[in-house]
């Protein structure tokens, strides 16, 4: 390679790096702009010109969102439903994944194929009949109604099965020789060997449940039972648009998942790869 072409190579590389950095700034800017707006007074928000930082710093918007709206209640609803979904999905999926992976019973292959096929079914197509079912069960406008349809998680079963499949058979046989029961095998061997996967799946299930919009939006119509994602968009201020207040509710709604992501980046990445079908 000549010196000249090497220089061109480096110049092109520099341009690409600069573009990437500019892109990252562009991508992060809306987040910055939303957060910085929440620390301004409402009258400063609508002032002429652009204030890159608050000219007068205040947490009034947050105070208002937390104490003058139902945000706290919505938060609690979101937390309860998301935790319930996470726990129930993981328990039922780990159990089913273990049975399909390690136990021999009639209909095993058929069940596996049904699970694989159900991966294709679009859940939004089922909203009408989920709604009818919840009405039949008398569950509309309850948190249970929010939880139930979100428990369908074929992907979680598939991932558990995959990982249980790859636990070496020697471990299983050694444990069986020592007289371990199937329950002990699952809880003392298979699950502990895959805690990482359980953590990753728990995080991604929680994030998914917290972020879900369509179903909680349909199942709940009373303000007191709403999730935070539905509440902040469907309940509007009677006093006209208050930008800082609206944005502070949004920031609070996004905060838990953003924090979970920043704390567990590697796990979140791993879980996303797994659900996309790439074993990471």
């Amino acid at each position, binding site marked *: 390679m000549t010196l000249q072409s090497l220089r061109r190579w480096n110049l092109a590389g520099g341009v690409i790096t600069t573009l990437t950095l500019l892109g990252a700034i562009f991508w992060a800017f809306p987040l910055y702009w939303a957060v910085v707006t929440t620390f301004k007074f409402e009258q400063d928000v609508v002032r002429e010109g652009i204030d890159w930082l608050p000219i007068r710093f205040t947490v009034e918007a947050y105070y208002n969102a937390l104490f003058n709206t139902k945000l706290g209640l919505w938060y609690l609803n979101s937390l309860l439903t998301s935790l319930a979904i996470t726990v129930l999905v993981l328990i039922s999926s780990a159990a*089913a994944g273990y049975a399909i992976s390690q136990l*021999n019973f009639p209909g095993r292959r058929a069940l596996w194929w049904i699970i694989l096929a159900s991966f294709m079914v679009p859940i939004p197509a089922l909203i009408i009949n989920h709604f*009818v079912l919840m009405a039949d069960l008398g569950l509309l406008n309850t948190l249970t109604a929010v939880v139930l349809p979100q428990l369908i998680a074929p992907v979680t079963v598939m991932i558990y099965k995959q990982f249980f499949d790859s636990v070496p058979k020697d471990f299983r046989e050694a444990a069986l020789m020592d007289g371990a029961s199937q329950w002990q095998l699952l809880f003392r061997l298979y699950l502990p060997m895959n805690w990482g996967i359980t953590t990753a799946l728990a995080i991604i299930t929680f994030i998914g449940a917290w972020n879900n919009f369509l179903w909680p939006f349909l199942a709940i119509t009373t303000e007191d039972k709403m999730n935070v994602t539905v509440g902040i*968009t469907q309940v509007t201020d009677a006093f006209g648009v208050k930008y800082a207040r609206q944005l502070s509710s949004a920031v609070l709604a996004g905060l838990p*998942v953003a924090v979970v992501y920043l704390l567990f980046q590697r796990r979140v990445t791993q879980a996303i790869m797994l659900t996309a079908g790439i074993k990471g």
Partner: protein
Amino acid sequence: MRRYDRSEMVTALVLLTPFVAIYGLLFVYPLLKMVMLSFTKSPLIGEGDWVGFANYIKLFKDRLFSVAVWNTLYFVLLSVIPSTILGLLIALGVNRLKGWTQSAVLAAFFLPYILPVSVVYRIWGWMLDAQFGILQFPIEAIFGERVPVFRTLPLFMPAVAFITIWWLVGFNVLLYIAGLRNISAEIYEAAELDGATRLQTFRRITWPLVWPITVLVATIQLILQLKIFDQLYLFGQGGRTDSVLSLVWLVYRDAFQKNQGGYGATIAVVLFALIVGVSVLQYQALRARGEK
């Protein structure tokens, strides 16, 4: 044939019961009911007369149905292809960086993906606010006036698609980075020794080797965007919704707002068939490269 062990079968039964119960009640049963409902003229809640294929025939004459199909496909076109290409470009850029710069840049591109749609809606509603949105400065500079983007019909879909790309591209970037890391450095070194240009290296090595990821990313996005509702609804609510609705939105409108459960279910069946069809194609496409 292998005999089944009785105690093993009992254990399997106990372990499978929660999953199968959830699955039967909330998945198989609603699915079958949906198909049956589509052959009746029922309200959302309650019984209705069996009308055979009348709902399906009605579908073809329904102007809103063709609007919904068109809008859904238009949205898919506006979001899937750009977000796939952009995902690759960003991944190529991020992959060159090292250490904490790489982590920070990746986090900037990925963080929006983790946020709820409602938060994305609030952030961009503010960015593009017709009165005080910060993006109205460049818009005013270019067009000479402020533009209420979400109330201007030709701009609505492109704007929501753009916001969707901003929101979701991090997922594509992540998958592409995984793909790029799987390409061994030796291939690039060899290409460099042979004096290959950057463009040649990309066309002959990178592009073919990340092709499976491209197929995966594009089809995942395609299936996701065929189900578009949340963003469209949030940005469109209160406006001329009949012009901007998508298939899922039409299901919501007919079943929940117009109380026509049977007809809504018919649209849901079509959506279901469409997505299963695409998924089968995806499966074929992914398997095809596996066998190569």
